[in-house]
């Protein structure tokens, strides 16, 4: 009986899928004339608008389904109706655009698939008896980072809430620095160097793996400071699932990355990382396809040894290691609670360099260990990996989109063989649905249009490494990103901005040509000109924002402040005390809000009491700023115990990062559009000012040359 019911259910499920597929294909391929297509699009869009405002997961799923239907219809029309070009030039350029669009379509659909149902995994409690907790090795690999950065991480690792006999901390110094060795001895953590530096970070980790025995390995980049709760939040899942190979937590940055700093969006608009850690990884988790990201993660030694240690074949050893674990049937997990934080890369060139490495690594994996072939992966896992790797090939398509309208405006090439109104009737719904759906699904983690800006900044740089890696995966060098420096003067990074300055110039020229053709041309194709003008205008807006990203803003404060409001007590010279609240902290600094003014002066030596686990310590400090009731303290000459205490009371707090993370207001398409306009205008203004200054300097130099002799060095 049960068998029969089972068979019946299977048949009905299959039938349902069959019907659904048939309906989908019908909607996609049915030919409609212009009026019907417009009506159909309008209907779909109205439904989408209604769904957009509804809360919950079902409306989001329906939005995705609608978007896939509308975009599929567009792609079908593009493939079947719009490629009948007679001119070779049209055909060549048109094919280029079509390929770029296919890429965009595939990543759109894969993107939806990836975030169908973010898992939202919660931490699992550990056994009541502490004796049942496993042993953990904490690895802190370092190469050339400053000791002042690394010591914070080490002291925070020592503050991890874990039984002391089951926790050992290892600094893996590929830089072989004596001061590191001395510090580790003083702090009481293990210090490792190895004979050579083969395979960079991956090799470093593997060397340490051979010298340790803990059941689990927690890895922190030397500038990722863990909170005290990190291990308790993560290890519960390993005890529940013996096949769990890796658990990742978000990479959170408490300083602005160069794009955020230059665009002035830090804390207002989600950055690139937030989409990945806020949504994509959580979405991957459903498919058991969480990637390892190299830091802020726990790995099981058993699983690591099964895959032969951290992967060394590619420059993104982390993602590759997780892929190998997946192939062997190990699971991975993701907990979307920031349990560590670090400094973002400092300059735009360093930021670009880091992205280039990721892109190269992903392209290398695609070539050497293609997730779409090979054993051991489920289909969703293959799709998730494919999406992650395809993502980094956006370079060429992005450049195609940024130049496509110029083909018509400059060369009169018709790269889409269809009347402008038909293009509008098919393409606009496709774009609008994609915008709307992504805004709804990604809203808290990415605002509309910013993705285009980020990609436009990186497109040119990412293009070559990905293509090189695709064709010869062994070539190219590993570059380490420098962090924690200063930008002492605002300047315009022309060397980085050059590609999009050229693109911007081309698009501006296209705009002029278009307007000229509109008013003084022979008439005809007015709609096509308008269409391409609109496209060009959009490109200029995006490129303007990209240019804004390249004008490096001055950054003087070395330490980045993090908000923190906890009780403290200030002790002035003479023994009087004052109960107060902290405002923020930074490496080596603390901001206080006092109950009244004129308590201390700049330069005063004071002591401040910070409480941890209902215990207190007084730390000596100097007053460095006084602004009414707000004062800033600087700690210098702390003993190691005092420094550890300070870190335990600041960086290590379990809730140190949770309030800032993923707390952006949701996306509102119109507001996002206005914001991108304003940023773009600022970018164009800064560029104009820079060009004027540059011009004046050159003119000045030329005119003054004959009069003065060059200064002698």
């Amino acid at each position, binding site marked *: 009986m049960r068998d029969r019911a089972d068979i019946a259910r299977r048949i009905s499920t299959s039938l349902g899928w069959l019907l659904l597929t048939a309906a989908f294909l019908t909607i996609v391929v049915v030919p409609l004339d212009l009026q019907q297509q417009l009506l159909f699009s309008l209907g779909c869009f109205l439904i989408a608008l209604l769904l957009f405002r509804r809360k919950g997961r079902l409306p989001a799923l329906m939005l995705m389904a609608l978007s896939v239907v509308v975009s599929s219809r567009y792609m079908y029309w593009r493939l079947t109706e719009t490629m009948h070009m007679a001119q070779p030039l049209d055909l060549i350029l048109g094919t280029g655009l079509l390929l770029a669009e296919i890429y965009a379509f595939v990543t759109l659909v894969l993107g939806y698939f990836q975030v169908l149902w973010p898992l939202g995994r919660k931490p699992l409690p550990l056994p009541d008896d502490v004796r049942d907790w496993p042993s953990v090795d904490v690895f802190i690999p370092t190469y050339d980072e400053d000791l002042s950065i690394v010591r914070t991480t080490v002291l925070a690792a020592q503050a991890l809430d874990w039984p002391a006999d089951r926790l050992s901390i290892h600094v893996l110094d590929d830089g072989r620095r004596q001061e590191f060795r001395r510090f580790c001895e003083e702090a009481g953590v293990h210090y490792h160097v190895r004979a050579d530096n083969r395979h960079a970070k991956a090799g470093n980790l593997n060397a340490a793996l051979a010298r340790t025995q803990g059941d689990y390995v927690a890895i922190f980049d030397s500038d990722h400071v863990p909170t005290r709760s990190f291990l308790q939040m993560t290890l519960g899942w390993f005890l529940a699932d013996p096949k769990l190979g890796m658990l990742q937590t978000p990479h959170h940055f408490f300083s602005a990355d160069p794009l955020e700093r230059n665009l002035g969006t830090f804390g207002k608009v989600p950055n690139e990382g937030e989409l990945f850690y806020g949504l994509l990884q959580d979405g991957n988790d459903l498919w058991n396809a969480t990637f390892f990201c190299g830091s802020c993660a726990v790995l099981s030694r058993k699983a690591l040894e099964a895959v032969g240690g951290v992967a060394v074949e590619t420059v993104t050893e982390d993602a590759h290691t997780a892929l190998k674990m997946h192939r062997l049937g190990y699971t991975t997990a993701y907990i979307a609670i920031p349990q560590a934080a670090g400094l973002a890369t400092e300059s735009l060139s360093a930021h670009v360099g880091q992205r280039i490495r990721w892109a190269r690594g992903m392209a290398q994996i695609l070539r050497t260990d293609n997730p779409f072939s090979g054993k051991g992966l489920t289909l969703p896992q293959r799709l998730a990996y494919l999406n992650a790797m395809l993502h980094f090939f956006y370079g060429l398509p992005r450049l195609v989109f940024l130049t496509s309208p110029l083909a018509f405006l400059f060369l009169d090439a018709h790269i889409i063989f269809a009347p402008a109104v038909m293009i509008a009737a098919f393409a606009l719904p496709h774009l609008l649905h994609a915008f709307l759906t992504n805004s709804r699904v990604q809203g808290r983690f990415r605002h509309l249009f910013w993705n285009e800006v980020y990609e436009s900044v990186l497109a040119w740089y990412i293009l070559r490494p990905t293509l090189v890696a695709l064709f010869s995966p062994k070539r190219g060098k590993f570059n380490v990103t420098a962090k924690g420096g200063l930008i002492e003067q605002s300047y315009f990074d022309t060397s980085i901005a050059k590609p999009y300055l050229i693109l911007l110039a081309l698009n501006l020229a296209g705009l002029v040509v278009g307007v000229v053709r509109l008013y003084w041309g022979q008439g005809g194709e007015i709609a096509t000109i308008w269409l391409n003008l609109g496209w060009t205008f959009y490109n200029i807006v995006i490129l303007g924002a990209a240019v804004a990203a390249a004008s490096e803003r001055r950054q003087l404060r070395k330490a980045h402040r993090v908000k923190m409001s906890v009780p403290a007590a200030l002790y002035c010279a*003479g023994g009087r*005390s004052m109960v107060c609240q902290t405002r923020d902290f930074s490496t080596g600094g603390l901001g206080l809000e006092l109950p009244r003014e004129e308590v201390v002066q700049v330069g005063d030596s004071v002591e401040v009491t910070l409480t941890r686990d209902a215990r207190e310590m*007084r730390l000596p400090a100097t007053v460095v700023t006084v602004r009414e009731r707000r004062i800033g303290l600087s700690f210098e000459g702390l003993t190691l115990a005092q420094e550890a205490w300070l870190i335990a009371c600041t960086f290590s707090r379990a809730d140190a990062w949770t309030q800032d993370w993923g707390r952006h207001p949701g996306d509102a398409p119109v507001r996002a559009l206005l914001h991108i306009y304003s940023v773009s205008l600022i970018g164009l203004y800064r560029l104009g000012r820079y060009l004027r200054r540059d011009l004046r300097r050159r003119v000045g130099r030329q005119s003054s040359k004959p009069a003065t002799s060059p200064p002698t060095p």
Partner: protein
Amino acid sequence: MKLVAVTAVTGGAGVTATVANLAQALARARHQVVALDLDPCEALGLHLGLLPEADDDVVAPRRLRPAAQRWGHENVGVRACAVAAEAGLKGEALVSAALEDLEAGDEAIVLMDCGRWPAPLSEPAMARADLCLLVLPPEVGAYAALPRVRSLLKGRRGGVVVNRADPSRTLARDVLALLEHDLDDALLGVVHADLAVSEALARRQTLADYDRYGQALRDYELCAQNLLSRLRDAEAARR
């Protein structure tokens, strides 16, 4: 009346200062408070703003003569009970007579300064009290006296106030940690060493008037809150 006896097992623990500041903290929280001095040293009046030489009444011996009705700071009633009373009353009878003489209402909280244990009146006062507080400095000697503290609190409702904690010194921090660990639930609160306490005394001001934002003031307020909640518990248990 809700009776709270305050005493210590080591000298110089700060019983009188604790009584005075707790009484003020309770009064600021709008409770009716009377501080009753059962300590032969008779310093409580001073801590509450009364100068002995200016107010003969306070110390004038009469038959079991509590101080003339004198209100010190704000609405804290303070009575000094001249222990050397020639009336010849002693022990329990003296305490009972002193309490009766207060004519305090049911809601009034009476804080009895018993001085260092064993003082002439500490046993009878503690026998009558709803709560017994012990003041303990975070010092090695005090830690060594913990067994006595325990035996005193055994079978009684009460708690320990750690007075003059100084987290800037390592030894004091460690002893404090030991005390906190060993006392556990018995700990009522920790009062930090704060110069403002003695400076306020020297100026004959209340701590709150002298330094509104000081750490010790905050600590006394927390202790007062905890004291109130334990008094409520005691009352609930009695019913």
